[in-house]
């Protein structure tokens, strides 16, 4: 049986600290505390900056003796996160888990993983290959994915292309420039104007 009293305390502690950490954990539904949704901000100075990433959390019966199961629901381009399923490769979510850790410290570790990819122990081999062999393209793709999937408030990629087309640029060129700029519409506009 999940230790719900502890989970309750963890949620309280997390919400007290939300201003500072930016890390949020809320129950998925009112029915149970065994399914939660975690939210982490993309770390500053990384291709994930500005993005908000959602993580699906399922607590096994033996929690806190067994690690929480965590999986990105927001699509992420990262060597240690599956670009398809969102599965995370992180030691503390497996055999290095300890009851001394919490949902918040686990999410902080996931956030740290975004800052410091470990391509030698990949979850997603394709992304890891790209990270090692063509770092610039990796950064561009990761930034593009962040823009496209992790920024809910900003415009979707379709709208951005539409906006550039309205300014008079050809659609194919607008799209490719936008992709090259990692989804940054202002940077794309600059490139389109100068090019």
């Amino acid at each position, binding site marked *: 049986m999940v*230790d719900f009293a*502890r989970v309750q*305390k*963890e949620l309280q*502690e997390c919400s007290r600290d939300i201003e500072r950490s930016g890390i949020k954990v809320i129950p998925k539904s009112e029915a149970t505390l065994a399914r939660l949704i975690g939210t982490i901000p993309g770390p500053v100075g990384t291709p994930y900056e500005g993005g908000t990433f959602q993580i699906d959390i399922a607590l096994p019966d033996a929690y806190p*003796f*067994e690690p929480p*199961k965590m999986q990105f629901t927001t699509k992420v381009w990262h060597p240690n996160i*599956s*670009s*398809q*399923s969102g*599965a995370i*490769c992180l*030691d503390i979510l*497996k*055999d*290095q*888990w*300890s*009851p*001394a*850790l*919490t949902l918040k410290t686990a999410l902080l570790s996931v956030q740290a993983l975004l800052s410091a990819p470990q391509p030698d*122990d*990949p*979850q*997603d*081999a*394709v992304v890891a290959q790209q990270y090692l062999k063509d770092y610039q393209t990796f950064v561009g793709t990761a930034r593009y994915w962040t823009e496209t999937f992790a920024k809910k408030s900003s415009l979707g990629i379709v709208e951005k292309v539409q906006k550039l087309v309205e300014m008079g640029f050809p659609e194919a060129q607008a799209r490719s420039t936008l992709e090259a700029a990692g989804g940054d519409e202002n940077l794309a506009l600059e490139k389109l104007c100068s090019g």
Partner: protein
Amino acid sequence: MQNHDGVQVDGKVESAASVATPEFDEWANFGDQDIMQQHSAIRAEEAEKIPFLGDKAILKSLDFEPLSSLASEYQSGSAILLEKIKVLGEQYAAIRRTRGDGNCFFRSFMFSYLEHILESQDRSEVDRIKANVEQCRKTLQSLGYADFTFEDFFALFLEQLDSVLQGNEESISHDELIRRSRDQSVSDYVVMFFRFVTSGEIRKRSEFFEPFIFGLTNATVEQFCKSSVEPMGEESDHVHITALSDALGVPIRVVYLDRSSCDNGGVSVNHHDFVPAGSDAPKASEGSEKVTPFITLLYRPGHYDLLYPK
């Protein structure tokens, strides 16, 4: 776009293949969670074989009879070990085995300590260790651990401590102590309590422990505590034993059953006493008197069991 999730897991799968081996074509979909599941299935299977804590097995003199499986294990091997097993039989009356799940040191310590209190009804020792436990709590707080991460584990240990003292409503019998030690919902909590205490002590005195840890694992104190002390199932070494003994002020004797032999050709079984650094350890009498630990563990490379002196 091709995704190769799971490609890298092949090696890990092979090393854990004793339970149902998946078909090869499923391996591409064999993710981390499947591996975790397989690991816990293997653990559960092993758990069926040996309880957390075994029965007390009487050693006949010169004969490690209840360990016939162990003896046969060594029969074709080292004569030194067989000799040592005989010597052990002369000094020790019984052995109690613990499950080899990486928690054996802490579980042996737990049972041995609580059994000692149950049998001795030494209330001054209980008062003494409670003061140390409070100190450990403060240590963890000052190291920045959130209370809710450790308080349940502390509470459960203190509860066991009170219940082995007789004469109150919660008092328990020896049989009940054995039952609880085999019950995961009690036993694992107490093991985790000791892991917290050990980690806190190592971090608090990191300068002292640093060289030992560096020699052992090449890791920093912080890394060592996170990866080798706090996770359940991580095996204990002399660093863990020293830290736990110091933190709780409880001396521990470890008897070594290994292949080392003596220079003079005679066979003796080595032991080492871990005596707490603090001076408030329970002592037989005057300060100059040698401390005799009431906890005796048998160490064979990779595993600890409990020994009962004659």
